Structures are given as structure tokens and as C-alpha cells.
């Protein structure tokens, strides 16, 4: 049984059936989903895709509008949703960046207790590269040690994808150069196609949604590894689509002869679980009534399990996002209030050293 089925079942058991009062609550209403990134990116596409199916699971079949509220380093959308009336008609679907916000400057900090969590949705992260680096042909991770001319293309020094990529290569003891500031994944892919950079860590949705076809399919690149995500019981989740691609953990074991450990790996795990495991936080402003919240949580969990949604998500992003229930999300949010100082130190020192 898929992991998400179990989680959805648990959520349904915990929350019970929606109360009768809530049943006609959304008749003729429009729910506004605020996203904090542009409409065309993976956040907007997945929110829109999900909204199309979510309506079928809410009594009254409300309309949905996905509204991008961009700016303020992704804070504008978060603030907009947080300040909305808690009437169940405005929800947040935000790229949350919880871990990096927790250790970042105060202006970027968010008190997530201002929200009632409905769910978390995550997209695993993976690495791929060009297959011709410095005159050598790369056929797999085993060719990385000793390779010269490896150049990691990054978004910006504080991006978790940059950080995970740099830490991974450092953990493997591989020398590399670092070009950052591309800002978005498409620009990195373009630079990789032009051979200005040759290594990229990306959300798997982007990889399966186009990079695989246009880089690997075009014969200029190869996938390297994916980063495992763990469910509440510690077991891996979100493995669909990776086929026989190795996990980063297994690559480290193969190349170093020992399982990964130490402060660097702890920081990778922390970033991966908190950022890739929960790419998006779906929430209502604090103060929404309990019945409406229960209805939203249950209908969300049911939508995740709907075959039509899963099929559409797989067709669009290559895999179904990993679902995290509200209880697990709230535990994660609690954890952000007391980040392990060693992890915080590792991450901040990487951001500082990556600043050009």
C-alpha cells in the first residue's frame, strides 16, 4: 500500500467525517488559494492542478481561484494569506522554506503558528549533470572522484538546492567550481546546455517535467542520484519515478565505503527533509473555525488519494508530491523553534562562503 494511502487513511480516521454544519458551507462560494510565487512555475501549476480536483471533495463544490501574490522575497504571499479573514475562503499554498527562514534574517522569519495547517506537500530533490566534463566522459556517480572542471550551477547562495549540492560534493570529497545567481531552474538548464555549468541539483518535478527529456534525452547528460525523504516512521517515501536511480545515501556508501554521517550529512538531511519534504505548506489563517478546518483537512487528504489527481500530477510533474499530514507538519514547525546549533552553524557558514 502506498505511503500516502496510509497517511490519508490515518488523517481520515483522526478527523472523522465532516460535520453536517460544514456540508453546505461552501455552496456557491469561491475559495482563493494564495501562492507566493508566479503563476507559471511548479508552485502555481501544482496548486492549480490540485484545486481542480479538490473541489470535487468539498460538499458544495466551491470554485477555486489560484492567486499569485509575489514579492518581498516570497513573504508577500505569506503575509497576504496570514492577514486574510479566517473564513475558510482564503487559503495559503506557499513555498514555505521553513528551515532556511528559521535560521535566516529576522525579516524573513515567519511565525507559522499564525496558520492552521491543512497539509504539507513535497517534491524530492535530485542531482544530474552533463556527461562530458573537462574532456572526460561521465557514465555515473563512480566517475566523479578525480574529475576536473566540475561546475555547479546554482540559484543563489542561500537556496537549499545550492546548499545541498555543495554539501553533497564536499561530503564526497569532489572538487568543483560554483556559479550561482541564476535565480531560476530554467536559466541553469540553459547554462548547462551551453556548457557554462555542468552539475545541477533540482526538484525532481522539474527533472521529470522537462530536463530528463531535453538534457538526458538529448544525449548530453545523465541523472546522478536522488535524496531520500523519510515518512513519520522513518521509512522512505516519494520514490515513484526514480526507477533504478541510486539514492544519495547509497552513492556515499559506494564511493566512501561507509554510510554517510557527521555534521555535513546532518545538515543535508535537515535541509532535505524540511525543504524538499515540504516544498509547500497548505494552510488557513489562524482563527478559522474547527469544522471548516476539519473539512478542509479531510478533503485535502482525500484529494491526494484520488486516482485522477495522481494521474494528472504524474503526467505534469513526473510523480505525485509527497503528502504530509497536519500533525506531522505541526511537529516539524515546533522543531524549527529550536534548530540544532551545529546544523545552523554549518548552513550559515555555507551561505556565507557561497556569497560571491
Amino acid at each position: 500500500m502506498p505511503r500516502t494511502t496510509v497517511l490519508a487513511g490515518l488523517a481520515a480516521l483522526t478527523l472523522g467525517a465532516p460535520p453536517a454544519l460544514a456540508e453546505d458551507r461552501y455552496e456557491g462560494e469561491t475559495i482563493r488559494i494564495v501562492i507566493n510565487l508566479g503563476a507559471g512555475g511548479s508552485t502555481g501549476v501544482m496548486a492549480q492542478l490540485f484545486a481542480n480536483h479538490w473541489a470535487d471533495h468539498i460538499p458544495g463544490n466551491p470554485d477555486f481561484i489560484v492567486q499569485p501574490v509575489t514579492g518581498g522575497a516570497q513573504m508577500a504571499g505569506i503575509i497576504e494569506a496570514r492577514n486574510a479573514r479566517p473564513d475558510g475562503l482564503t487559503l495559503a499554498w506557499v513555498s514555505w522554506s521553513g528551515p532556511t527562514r528559521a535560521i535566516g534574517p529576522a525579516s524573513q522569519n515567519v511565525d507559522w503558528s499564525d496558520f492552521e495547517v491543512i497539509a504539507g506537500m513535497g517534491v524530492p530533490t535530485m542531482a544530474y549533470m552533463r556527461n562530458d566534463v573537462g574532456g572526460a566522459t561521465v557514465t555515473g556517480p563512480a566517475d566523479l572522484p578525480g574529475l576536473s572542471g566540475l561546475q555547479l550551477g546554482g540559484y543563489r547562495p542561500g537556496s537549499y538546492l545550492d546548499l545541498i549540492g555543495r554539501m553533497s560534493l564536499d561530503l564526497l570529497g569532489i572538487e568543483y567550481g560554483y556559479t550561482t545567481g541564476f535565480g531560476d531552474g530554467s536559466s541553469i538548464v540553459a547554462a548547462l546546455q551551453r556548457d557554462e555549468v555542468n552539475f545541477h541539483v533540482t526538484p525532481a518535478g522539474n527533472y521529470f517535467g522537462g530536463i530528463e527529456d531535453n538534457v538526458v534525452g538529448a544525449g548530453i547528460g545523465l541523472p546522478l542520484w536522488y535524496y531520500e525523504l523519510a515518512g513519520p516512521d522513518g521509512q522512505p517515501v516519494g520514490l515513484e519515478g526514480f526507477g533504478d536511480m541510486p539514492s544519495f545515501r547509497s552513492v556515499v556508501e559506494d564511493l566512501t565505503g561507509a554510510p554517510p554521517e557527521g555534521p555535513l550529512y546532518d545538515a543535508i538531511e535537515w535541509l532535505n527533509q524540511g525543504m524538499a519534504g515540504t516544498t509547500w505548506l497548505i494552510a488557513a489563517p489562524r482563527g478559522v473555525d474547527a469544522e471548516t478546518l476539519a473539512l478542509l483537512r479531510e478533503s485535502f487528504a482525500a484529494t491526494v488519494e484520488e486516482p485522477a489527481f495522481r494521474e494528472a500530477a504524474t503526467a505534469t510533474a513526473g510523480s505525485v508530491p509527497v503528502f504530509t499530514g497536519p500533525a506531522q507538519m505541526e511537529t516539524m514547525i515546533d522543531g524549527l523553534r529550536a534548530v540544532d546549533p551545529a546544523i545552523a552553524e554549518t548552513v550559515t557558514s555555507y551561505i556565507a562562503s557561497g556569497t560571491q
Partner: protein
Amino acid sequence: MIDAFLSGLGLVFTWPTPLYLGLGVLFGLWLGAVPGLGGITGVVIILPFTFGMDTVPALALILGVFAVTATSDTIASVMLGIPGTAASQATVMDGYPMAQKGQAARAFGAAFTASAIGGVLGGLAMAASLPLIRPLILSFGTPEFFLLGALGLTMVATVSGGAVSKGLAAAAAGLLLSQVGFPVASEEPRYWFEIMYLIDGFPLIPVVLGLFALPEMLDLAVRNASISRVDRDETESLTAGIRDALRNWWLVIRCSWIGIYIGMLPGLGGMIADWVAYGHVAQSKRAPGEPEYGTGNVRGVIAPEAANNAVLGGALIPTVGLGIPGSASMAILLGAFTILGLAPGRAMLSTQLDITFSLVWMLIVANIFGAGLLMIVSRQMARLSFVSGHLIVPGVILFVFMGAWLDTPSIASWLTVLGFGALGYLMKRGGWPRPALVLGFVLGPVMESSLVLSWQSFSPADLLARPLSIALAVLLVVALVFAIRSTLKARDVSSLRAASRALGGHPASIFLGLALSATFLAAIAPALGWPPSARRFPLVIAPLGALFAAVALVTDLRAWPKRPASEGRGPDPETLKSAGFLLAIGAMIATAWAFGQPVALVGFVALYLGLATRHRIGWTLLYAAGAALALYVIYHRVLHVRWLEPALALWG
């Protein structure tokens, strides 16, 4: 390949695709005509409706919108001096002066014809380049982007109308403004004064609307006259404009090619293509008797309009062929492609090739249909240039402020429009070229990011091994020499014009010179503590900007005694009226904050017509009711605007 091309044509004319294409075109024409909206707004609105639709009709709806916004955005540029979208900024340069000369219909005829041809050529270029896509796009790397941006900056002299030191200082101010917010490769935002609105930098739309729209509306309000400053002349007709465009066919083709190529390059787009095309035509030789550029030369309308419509065809090439969206609008389109089950990249060049070619046909059909529709109504639109300015001002103010709000929903956006409006007014009065500031603002991010990325990835030896970089560097030197020579040659002719423009606003010019010199100098100190990649650009711009502003200031001060004594020492009535207008806009913003935007905007319309211009009460109420209806239907029901929560209502 030919089979797929014809099969694509069949798809476009299979019912109900023509219906959706037509609907998309109508919606796109409206979006382009209203300042501050544009294709992205439209596609965000219609995207949810395309779920569940068949692929080709859904694409027709989306592409219909995108294809023609660059055609109808000419209307605001010509009639009001306000860029309808970011891609029609350069059209203002000669389009608005043509309307002021009573030649709006001629400008429309030329613009719509050039737009249609540019759009069709863009579509054909897309079809022709699909087999060559990879080498075409991948030959252009980050160093070349920097050089292209620098090449764009050489147009400052062209758009400065003889006031070169002011133009250079204004361009430096635009570059410096583009430095606000997060730098490319470090995590500390610059010049943001801990104001969250500024953390990602100034948004383009409120800046452009402020710089261009408010000064022009202010001018209309203060002069109490129509846009056209001459009587109606029916000989300056639509057909004359069409003939102008056809007579300049080689220019149309050249500028379409500029649009296609710039569209193809990720990160640039229409707002740069139209300036490059304008720079191209303005640097070309004028025929005897032809008006100067910037004073109503029809070729200055034809060039940017051909380019900005051709951009879409070019921009679709990397989006469809490589899955690389080069702009925000292409990113949305890419999202729509994936939702509709298409796989941009190799699949759209092989198994889905017929659909790819249907996009080409959609572009061609939409551009011809859109331009045709606009030509039918252009005579009526042109007549608006002879209507009393007082009837135009309140409506345009409503659309301008709602456009800024739609782009960035924050009261700070309205303050940005007002702030840049005041700056634009001072620049206009003082003879400082506003396009130069916009040029710097638009090119700044492109140049800085490509410089920072090139710095990390390339050594000087790498750069010397890139033939395209060397070719562009040579072109840059040639353009610089050409710009300096033409500036020196034009100085004698244009100094009179520039001086006459600046004379009335001499104090405004001196004030700007002082303020900009101080701003540039103040910008140096904080930059010294930033990481190298974050400080490199501001530390080049700020001292140079201070130098150019100081030169402009000294020139103004030396000319100061030449002011006629009759001008008096106190502020003239026009200045007082202008200050009053800006204060009224400030009061409108305060009202919006206190009581909400609908109250503020409808109140402004009613008070402007009723009190300031003393229109009859019935006419005033009718206009105000129309404004309220527009706010409700267009912005509330169709665009789902999130209104500002009124501060006083919250207390109650």
C-alpha cells in the same frame, strides 16, 4: 515536416478552435489597450478555464491573448503617452508626438500594419528555425548577454534629444534604481531601507506608469486642452499610416528580425526589443524633410511595433524547442503546456510537431485578425485625441492606479506611481529624458546578472576564445563611436530644442541635478561594505552618475542668467496647478488607505469633474457611475482584484 505544417493549419481551422482563438484575440486586445494589464494578467485569468479543454482550442485561447497585446498596447502609447504594456515604451517616443500633431490615425495605421507583419514574420521565423533551434540559441551565452545590454545602453544618446549629460545621468539613475533589492549572488538586499516592498526591487509597471502616465495626465489637466494640439486633419488618415508602413517594408523586416532574435534570447523580451529597434531606426539616416526622431517621425513608431510583435514568435522558439522559458510570460505558457499534456522540448519537435506548427498558424492568424479589428475602430479611437483632456484624465488615472495595483497589490505601489510621477514631471519640465532612465532600469538587471555569472564561469582567456563575444565587443565600440559622433553632430541642431524644452523648467532641472548628484554620492558609502558581486555594479554606476549629474548641473547653472527677466522669481501658475494635481493624487491615495480604493477612485473622478473642471452634475454623476461600474465588473468580477482593507473600516 511539410505534412506537420499543413496538419497544424488544419488543427487551427477545426471547430471550435477558431472560436477560442477569436475570443483570445478580443480579450488580448482589451488587455493590451488598458495600461498596466497585459498578456500575463490575461493568461493567469484564463488558465483555469483551459483545464479540461481539448489541447488545441485551449492553446488557441491562450495564444490569442498573448499574440495581440503587443498590437493594442500601441493605443495608450500613441493616445496618452503611456506605454500600454512594458513592450511599447519606445512607441511613446514618436507615437505620442504624432497624436499631439493630430496624426493619431496615421500612427495607428502604421503601427498596426507593422505589428501584423512583425507578428506574421515572428510566426514564420519560429517555423523556419525549429530544425536549427539548438545551435541558434545555445551560441549566445552569459558574456554575450552582458555585451548586448551594454550595446542597448549606447542608445541613451539617441533617446536624449540633445541633452546628453542629462541622458547619461538619467540612465545611471535607472541603473542605480535597478540595484534596489536582492543582488544576484548574495543574500543581503541593497538600498531597501528595511521596507519589505523594496526587498525584491522596484516593480517595473508602477515605475513606468508613474514616469510616463502622471506627467502626461498632469499636462492635460493643467493645459485644459485636448491631446492633439492642432485642429483635426482628415488627410492624416489610417491609410496614410498603412502606406507609411508598406513603404518602409525593409525597416519592418529588419526590426521584426531584431524582435525575433531578442525574443529568442532568454531573459530579454519585448521591453528590450522595442528599445533596440527604436535605437536602430533612430541611428539610421533621415530622409530630407522627415521629422526628427522624438518629434513625431512615423518610422519611430513602425520600428518598435514591428519588433515587439515579432518577439512572441522568437520567444516561443526556446520555450517549445528546448523547454526553456525566456520570460515570465513564457514561464506561464510552459506551465500551461505541461498541464495540457504537451512536453516542450524534443517531443514538441517530433511526436507533437503538428501541434507546434498549429502554434505558428495561431500566431499568424491572430496577428492579422487583431490588427484588422483595430484598424476598423482606429478612426474612432483617433478622434479621442481631439476630445477635451479633462474627460480623459480621470478615467486614465483610474486605469493607471488599478494597473499598478494589479501588478503589485500594495499601497506602496500607488505611492511608487505618485513618486515616479513627480519625478517624471520634474524630468519633463527640466528637459531630462525619461526614456533614458527606463532604459537603465530595464537593462540594469540583465547586465548585472550576466556580468556576475560570467565573472564566476569564465576567465579572460575564455572570453577571448568566444567569436560572438568578440564580434559584439567590436559592435559595441562601433556603436559608441557612432553615438559620440552623432551626438556631437546633432548638438548644434538639437541644443536649441533641448534648451527650449528645458528653459521653462530650469529650476526643475537644477533641482534634479542637485538631487541626483547627492543621491549618487550617498549610494557609494553603503556599497563599500557589500560582497564583491553585490558592490561591483553600484560602485561603477554611482560615481559615474554623480559625474554626469554634476556636468548637467553645471551646464544648467551656467545657463541660469540667460533666463528672461520677465519670468519672475515666484513659481508660475502652471507649477502651482501641477503641484495641486499631485497633491490631489496624494489625497486620493490617503483616501484609499482610509476608506478603500473604490471610494478613493470614484471620489477622485467625481471631484475632478465636478469641482476642478466644473462639468455639469449629471455628466459628472454619469462618469462616476461608469467608473464604479468599471471597478466592479473589470477589476472585481473579472480580474478578482484583492482590494485594500480600509484602515478606518477596520477600526469600526
